[in-house]
């Protein structure tokens, strides 16, 4: 089974984690003023990247913390994990 490295707990089996969708989706600066269409894009629309994708994961069975990961959607390889308050890593 693939191991995912929790930034707090270290490497754990994949079944301990839950997927949380695309990371770095900014909350609208002025939510009261966005149109229905813009709001729908914020809530429902996500990238469908083939390759390196920045995602949110939760260590559900362990420390229950959210963190971000760069995962290759084609190979399923986790390339980087980083904390929510960290900047999005620059990947080659």
């Amino acid at each position, binding site marked *: 089974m693939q191991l995912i490295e929790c930034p707090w707990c270290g490497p754990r089996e994949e079944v301990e984690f839950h997927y949380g969708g695309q990371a770095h989706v900014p909350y609208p600066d002025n939510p009261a003023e966005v149109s229905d269409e813009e709001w729908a894009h914020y809530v429902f629309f996500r990238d469908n990247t083939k390759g390196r994708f920045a995602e949110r994961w939760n260590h559900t*069975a362990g420390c229950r913390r959210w963190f971000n990961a760069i995962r290759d959607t084609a190979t399923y390889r986790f390339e980087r994990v980083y904390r929510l308050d960290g900047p999005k890593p620059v990947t080659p």
Partner: protein
Amino acid sequence: MAELLRTHPLEAWHVAFERLPDTARIAVEPFVAMVDVRLGAVGPEVRAGLGVDLPTIANTWVPADAGRATWLGPDEWLLSSTAETPEEFESRVRAAVLPLGGSATDVSAQRIGLRLTGARVRDVLTKGCSIDLHPRVFGRGSSVQTMLGQAGVVLLALSDAGDDYVVLVRSSFAGYLADWLLDAALEFITPDS
């Protein structure tokens, strides 16, 4: 008015546990008061109020006055006490962490404890746990939140010899986990034990 008695979820398993050999003992721990603490930053003032240094290293626990303080997350700990009632313990811990911006919640009814002792209990645990439990890396003071069988548990190492552990499991999963442990320990029951 009828008195509400708390019955232990593993009362019916006592007989089965007693049949286990000394190499793989399972004992039900008595109820203890447990409090979940959320606190942003840990400084010396925490020790002054709580009487224990909350562990800041992930996956560790430390002994407290009459219990333990276990790391659950970067801002979360599980405190236990055998000396106080849940109500007393919660209010004492709350009084200590509230001025520091933290919170304390009584979770005594959430989990029950099982004490696993003996030379083969590590073999029993590793049948359903992916964590490396060798005492070289999981000695006394280590803790881990993970899956044991299909149940989420908090596992604490009490010895450096790999023969003494505490498993904290949610009350509603206790029966399942007890059955799972008995099955995993089956091969260590010898005809003469």
